[in-house]
């Protein structure tokens, strides 16, 4: 169950809420059809309405708290899309803590991230709060050395 988050993520911010109540029970049965825009009818009931925290606040907090924040399909150790896999592979070349959320697990979070970055596809990479782009851009920045530059003052993972 902990696989929804990867090492280092601020567990307080979302784990509990995302895994609460009915959503928890439905996760496996709806994991696949959860995805995109075609299965809105089967969306898990909102789990945030009463929490006082909106999803966009969570995204904002994520990118603020985590020097390298990745929104992806699947989890870093088991990406479920080639592009997400590529982004993880590139970022793992560097000795920095990597935090990630699996947007396949929550269509609402997926939409919140899209709205936050004004970017339509996944994965999405944020470094030190700045939106970087998707896998093509991360790979390109890796090749040009820009990524190294961006990541150099991030404290290595323990």
């Amino acid at each position, binding site marked *: 169950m902990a696989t929804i988050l990867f090492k280092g993520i601020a567990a307080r911010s979302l784990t509990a809420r995302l895994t609460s109540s009915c959503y928890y029970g439905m996760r496996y049965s709806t*994991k696949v*059809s959860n995805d995109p825009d075609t299965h809105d009818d089967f969306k898990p009931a909102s789990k945030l309405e009463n929490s006082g925290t909106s999803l966009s606040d969570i995204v904002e907090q994520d990118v603020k708290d985590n020097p390298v924040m990745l929104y992806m399909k699947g989890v870093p150790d088991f990406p479920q899309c*080639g592009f997400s896999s590529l982004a993880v592979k590139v970022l793992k070349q560097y000795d920095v803590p990597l935090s990630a959320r699996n947007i396949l697990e929550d269509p609402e979070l997926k939409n919140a991230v899209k709205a936050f970055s004004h970017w339509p596809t996944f994965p999405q990479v944020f470094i030190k709060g700045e939106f*970087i*782009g998707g896998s093509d851009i991360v790979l390109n920045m890796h090749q040009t050395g820009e990524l190294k530059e961006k990541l150099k003052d991030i404290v290595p993972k323990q």
Partner: protein
Amino acid sequence: MSFRSTTTLLSRATRIKSKLQSSLEATVLELDDVSYQHAGHAAMKESSENETHFNLKIVSDKFEGQSLVKRHRMVYDLLSDELQSGLHALSIVAKTPKEITPDAK
């Protein structure tokens, strides 16, 4: 993982090309439908749609002076209808004519 041909009357690929061509005046515009490579992946399992994943190579003067993120946004903005109607992912290589000359990397 069977390859599904795109023989619909006006395929998404055709629409994508014409939108990009007319707005960005591309000098090179290569679009490959690679949906078959993604047909089995988690997000696509229950989707019957084809034309969901493309590789795009586009060269345009309009990318001059724009960061990569900006270039990608320019492409995505033009394709917002497609992205809302089943286009899942684009792998984008966006360059300026100068950047593809033999000496430049």
